[in-house]
């Protein structure tokens, strides 16, 4: 569908595509195979100013909005979900600062991320606190002009590679969910170490590690917003970043659809390309239709956020939910269309299927996302009734 992008948006999308096709495409299989973090590609993206997109202008950024970020993430994901997520998680990592940080914090951290010299990561999840985020146990005890952190964060994307971590911790366990706070912790702070790199099903070029805090002293000035605001910061951050997960799912699905369509036209069976078989055509039609519907939802959500909508929790959740479930179906069908070849690692679709799975899981599993949407629906019904 023609989305009538502005000149700026076309330039942005075109550049992201150029990087994806010229730089990422030749190395994606190898990086996946070797589970290597794509530092060279991050540097390339930085030289092209791609990391400036999500940073405000006052801090050396280009002041792009949610939709701009989605356009970039979609193009990168179309070629490789693993590399796209390293980029997107970086954006997620600085989002709490952009939304709630003070000027000192923004001046200190944002320009470095804009230039690509430092990466960021966002950390909430723990072993005991996945969907049940309020069950986090990492504590931050106030001691003079520091907080002392103890605890472990789990499954953190960009963990170990990033230098700037926005972490949600319990500053006052007695207050329950109102006792959490968000802090910035820098790599290299004494008492802050990393667990081993996780071995994953997909997005294998992305680095996933535990963050381990043992009496880690963090300056009070690193507190984002106020004590007790931790979950509000986290929820507002995720509301804005979920369309980005949707964009990743769109991109991965797009790549899979293109690969499946191309293969179907080349693969000859019973004397004809399999693209002439109605069963295959119907699969492609379903894939394309779902993908377009997901795109419409993701784009509409991103645009409503950029236009200044006051509340978009529900829409944002829906965009992520629909797009990720769609991507899982589309990539699975793509493997099916390539059949035997699709199962082989020499062909790109099995990786796309492995990469798509995570979009149904992170930034809220699709189950907890459904809970959130249902609550919104019922709230509305309650109001009307």
């Amino acid at each position, binding site marked *: 569908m023609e989305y009538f992008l502005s000149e700026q948006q076309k*330039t942005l999308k075109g550049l992201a595509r150029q990087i994806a096709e010229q*730089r990422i495409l030749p190395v994606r299989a190898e990086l996946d195979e070797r589970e290597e973090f794509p530092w060279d590609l991050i540097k390339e993206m930085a030289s092209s100013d791609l990391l400036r997109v999500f940073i405000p202008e006052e801090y050396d950024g*280009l002041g792009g909005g949610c939709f701009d970020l989605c356009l970039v993430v979609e193009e990168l994901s179309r070629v490789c979900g693993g590399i796209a997520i390293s980029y997107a998680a970086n954006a997620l990592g600085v989002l709490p600062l952009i939304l709630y940080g003070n000027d000192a914090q923004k001046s200190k951290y944002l320009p470095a991320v804009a230039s690509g010299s430092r990466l960021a990561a966002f950390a909430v999840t723990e072993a005991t606190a996945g969907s049940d985020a309020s069950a986090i146990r990492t504590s931050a005890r106030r001691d003079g002009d520091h907080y002392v952190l103890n605890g472990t964060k789990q499954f953190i994307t960009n963990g170990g590679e990033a230098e700037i971590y926005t972490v949600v911790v319990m500053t006052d366990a007695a207050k329950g969910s109102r006792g959490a706070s968000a802090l910035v912790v820098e790599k290299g702070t004494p008492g802050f170490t990393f667990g081993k790199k996780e071995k994953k099903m997909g997005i294998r070029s992305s680095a996933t590690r535990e963050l381990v805090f043992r009496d880690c002293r963090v300056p009070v000035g690193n507190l984002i917003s106020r004590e007790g605001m931790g979950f509000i910061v986290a929820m507002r951050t995720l509301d804005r970043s979920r369309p980005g997960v949707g964009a990743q799912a769109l991109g991965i699905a797009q790549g899979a659809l293109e690969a499946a369509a191309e293969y179907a036209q080349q693969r000859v069976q019973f004397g004809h390309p399999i693209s002439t078989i109605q069963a295959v055509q119907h699969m492609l039609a379903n894939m394309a239709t779902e993908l377009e519907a997901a795109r419409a939802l993701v784009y509409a959500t991103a645009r409503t956020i950029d236009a200044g909508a006051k509340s978009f929790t529900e829409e944002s959740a829906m965009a992520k939910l629909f797009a990720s479930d769609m991507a899982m179906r589309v990539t699975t069908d793509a493997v099916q269309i390539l059949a035997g070849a699709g199962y082989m690692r020499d062909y790109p679709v099995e990786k796309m299927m492995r990469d798509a799975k995570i979009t149904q899981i992170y930034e809220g599993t699709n189950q907890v996302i459904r809970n959130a949407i249902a609550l919104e629906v019922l709230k509305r019904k309650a109001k009307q009734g």
Partner: protein
Amino acid sequence: MNVIVCIKQVPAKIKIEIDPKTGTLASGGVDRAINPPDLYALEEGIRIKERTKGKVTVLTIGPAKADESLREAIGYGADEAILLSDPAFEGSDTWATSHVLAKAIKKSGQFDLVLCGKQSIDGETGQVGPMLAEALGVPFVSLVNKIEELGQISIKVMRMSDEGHQLIEMMLPGVINVVKEINVPRIPSLRGLMVAKKAKVPVWNAQELGIDPAVVGSAGSPTRVVEVFFPQRPGKSEMLQGDPESQVDQLVEKLRQTKAI
């Protein structure tokens, strides 16, 4: 260093059609792009500018639409661009092209080095670089795959030769054409592309360049294309049938007959 890079706009795809009425190229409406070999020249020029804190000016001859390619070049990092455009230039052969470029370069002021790509993907002659050098009265080195040293009055370059490589010292100002092996072109930056959109690209025509229309274009060029045609392949492919043994026997027999082996 003041560096000049000459680029050409070429069809983005190489499948072409002949207009059955005129017997010439039907090139209207084809997507155009910067000649890919020129991107290596542009990248090298930008690297030289970065090393020497100099300037890169990009030139091209073309219709008004060629402005897009010049802006793209600025997006990559060139400082300025000039479009040389005049109906009289259309259909110029390589001599006429280098004549126009030479006039433009002289008009643009002092320069140290001119870089060209090895050849265009449509004409594929590789002649504009050396002809340009001769027209400017400066030295030329072809097939450069590495710039070893940049000096004030000369540069040292490695060029590809029949036996391997040669290290050549060339006095400045001079012209070189470069091969792909010389670098990996960068991807443009967003800020570069935004600057490019707003850049002023002057257009110089024949009169401003002091060029007599009679010596350029299809009418004035020393060489003229009198006919274009699709190459005749000797009939359709002969498909050799049978099992592999039989196919191989047939092939060897045919190759012997045609003295190919």
